[in-house]
């Protein structure tokens, strides 16, 4: 509806992710699939961006291009709050809905982080990974973080104003600064993408999200693309992902469709290489729970009563695991070891467990870590598992303790932490910063 050329916008469909409807589009037909997650976007207005339709249609040649509008913005349902985990759920829901088993996954800027974590956690669902304009973290250091948080109220008040959005437009894509169609589109697109408080929620997630620890766990062939202006961030991301290819594309702006060179780089990457082996390592979140003073309690109660209390404890833990989609890996004596596909769910599950177990006259401690694990049949093994077990051993009764990686990934969830300092974990190299869930 914007002035200028008429654009054919692909039909919009909605996949169900939990209770929410997630908007997506499918362009072209097979044989391979490419899923594209744009930055904060609206799938309707996106197609009217300068050169985007041309870019999208070319990308859809010889394959199905699947565009996803994760929750919170654009055409999808907009509950308050954003986390990488919920965005991953939305991505998976659309992939399932359109029957895409193992697409090439492409994410832009913040959405690149969602795609990167998804690929690390689900290497069997991602053929190849393309990260455009990615960054491992959006702010560096606590001062920058404080400043970013302090500016949110002001951003909220100014959101939607033409002059504010036009300045953003010029800053992001100076090459189109004199193109009235681009400026008009940018203002329009952003107003239809998000409202003031959704913007603030989104920025909150962006400010606290840090995927530095996750990137080394990616075992999917990865292409990192960026313009010269974002070189530093892209280089850091590429250096952290094993065997990632970095291509710096000429151009002044951040738009992925600025020129055909990005498309060429994508096609070259996708044409090269042979069919790959599905790796047996995945990014997983591990939860360890452990009963506190169990020996003493067992003595007090006697064998028979202790066994019955223990059974009730096991039932309770299993019920909570089921509720939060945790997978029980092992039960060692009076502790549980489980894995989750997202750290926020693991935290919520652990909290429930430590809060409810006292009903049985018992106390429990819990530790959570997210890292690369080896899959051995149904079991998980590897350093991350040891780290998780060690983290839980530092927890006090009734406490849920997590590693820095976990804290960095649940940005936007509203979960708060208290720092517990840096520790050495027995048998694990390095120093580990631990946090207690408040």
């Amino acid at each position, binding site marked *: *509806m914007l002035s200028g050329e008429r654009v054919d916008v692909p039909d919009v469909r909605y996949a169900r992710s939990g209770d929410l409807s997630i908007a997506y589009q499918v362009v072209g037909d097979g044989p391979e699939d490419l899923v594209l997650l744009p930055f904060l976007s609206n799938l309707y207005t996106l197609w009217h961006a300068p050169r985007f339709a041309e870019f999208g249609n070319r990308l859809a040649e010889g394959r199905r291009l699947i565009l996803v509008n994760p929750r919170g913005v654009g*055409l*999808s*349902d907009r509950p308050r709050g954003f986390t990488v985990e919920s965005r991953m759920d939305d991505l998976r829901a659309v992939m399932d809905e359109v029957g895409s088993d193992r697409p090439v996954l492409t994410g832009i800027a913040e959405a690149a982080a969602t795609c990167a974590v998804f690929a690390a956690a689900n290497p069997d669902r991602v053929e190849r990974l393309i990260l455009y304009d990615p960054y491992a973290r959006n702010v560096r250091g606590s001062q920058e973080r404080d400043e970013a948080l302090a500016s949110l109220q002001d951003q909220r008040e100014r959101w*939607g104003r033409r002059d504010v959005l036009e300045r953003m437009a010029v800053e992001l894509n100076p090459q189109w600064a004199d193109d009235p169609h681009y400026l008009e589109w940018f203002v329009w697109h952003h*107003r*239809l993408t998000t*409202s003031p408080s959704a913007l603030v929620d989104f920025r909150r997630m962006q400010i606290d999200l840090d995927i530095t620890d996750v990137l080394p766990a990616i075992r999917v062939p990865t292409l990192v693309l960026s313009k010269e202006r974002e070189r530093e961030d892209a280089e850091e991301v590429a250096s952290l992902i094993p065997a990632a290819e970095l291509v710096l594309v000429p151009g002044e702006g951040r738009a992925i469709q600025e020129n055909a060179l990005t498309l060429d780089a994508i096609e070259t990457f996708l044409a090269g290489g042979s069919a790959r082996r599905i790796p047996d390592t995945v990014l997983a979140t591990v939860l360890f729970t452990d009963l506190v003073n169990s020996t003493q309690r067992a003595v007090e109660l006697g064998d028979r009563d202790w066994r019955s209390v223990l059974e009730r404890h096991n039932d309770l833990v299993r019920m909570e695991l089921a509720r939060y989609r945790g997978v029980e890996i092992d039960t060692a004596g009076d502790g549980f070891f489980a894995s989750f596909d997202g750290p926020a769910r693991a935290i919520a599950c652990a909290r429930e467990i430590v809060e409810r177990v006292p009903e049985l006259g018992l106390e429990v401690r819990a530790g959570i870590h997210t890292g690369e694990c080896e899959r051995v049949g149904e079991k998980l093994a590897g350093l991350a598992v040891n780290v998780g077990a060690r983290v839980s051993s530092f927890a006090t009764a009734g406490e849920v303790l997590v590693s820095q990686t976990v804290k960095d990934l649940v940005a936007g969830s509203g979960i708060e932490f208290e720092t517990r300092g840096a520790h050495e974990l027995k048998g694990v190299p390095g120093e580990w910063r631990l946090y207690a869930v408040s």
Partner: protein
Amino acid sequence: MPDIRYAKNGGTSIAYHVVGDGPVDLVYVPDYVSNLVYAWETPRWRSFYERLSRSFRLILFDKRGTGLSDSGREFATLETRMEDLHAVLDAAGSERAVVFGSHEGAGMATLYAATYPERTIALVVFQPSAAGGHYEGPEQMEEDLRELREQWGTQAWCDELLRFGAPSIAESPEDREWFANWLRVGASPSVAYGLNRAFFETDLTDVLPAVRVPTLVLYRGSLVEPEALDFAHRVRSAHTVRVAGDDYFGIYLSPEAVDEIETFVAGDRPPVVPDTVLTTVLFTDIVGSTERARELGDRAWRQLLERHHAVVRRELARFRGVERDTAGDGFFATFDGPARAIRCAQGILQSVDSIGLELRAGVHSGECELHEGKVAGIVVSAGARVAALAQRGEVLVSSTVKDLVAGSGLEFEDRGEQELKGVGAWRLYSVLDA
């Protein structure tokens, strides 16, 4: 296009803009979903708005959850959306406005006009219905809602809706595409579902007689005629005009409606100074107070009563209730929205539990007379009677109240039709605990 601004109601931002600078303000309450930016790019809407803005200072906004506005934490009741309108008018510096609501938006406009007559110059409604549209029974409604939830925004479903709602433009591919996008950028599936469900479940029949501002009822087509005429009949002084055409949706298909509005508003009528408003009344009463007083003795009873008063006043303040009277051990308060009155009553009942007292509460909405800060009228007597029928620990409400809080998540149990002494028979409902 005029620049977008945001008015704040609590933590929720409501997008609005002001067009033109006529001497009289007119605020348009859209039907179902809208999008300020997209509407302005659409020739049909733009020419309609421009026509309105030649006669009025036109205020346009997107309801929460739709268009450019924030969603808010949960699905909003009619009452909350009405407050959003209040916030928009405040932000736009509008003291009094013509409130113009179309189809589903007519409910919100009507409730606003009845609640805030002093801020409403006139009420204009297009395609109004007193109760949830014409539907072929609750089963059909559930079926339609389910289909909407599953298929909202897809081209095929939007096409079908357009063929039903506006057949005169449904054959044009451009209009079909335009309409699908209008729905998509207007609301996501769950918001559209919530709005439609609330519309079907809302019943304004009892509110209509409380509308005391000049009212213009516009309708189009034979489908809505019975409902529109019924609506007009229930409002005391409504003027009714049928506009040309047959399409069920789309006020923009009737640009001449603007002339009708202009003539009506400019009409030579004496200014109305309404002395009645739509109000929700809450009565609470301590159960078994005489026995308790005797048990405790005067002094302890007085102390307990003081604590009771403090609790009630704290909850009233929390839910913006206005204390009107304290008769012995009961309270009489008024609210500008029924959902808040119910939540307040629940809060009071819960809190007094901890000081060892039991209460009953009754809530009713209707037209009240205002005299120097005092509230009077049948609705006050009826409210007191409703409370008297409540059991200990129960919040009892009239059917009028229940019909107005659709979408609030409040649940009710039918208590049947009861004779209220001196004020006739009313169907009463018990509020279930959350």
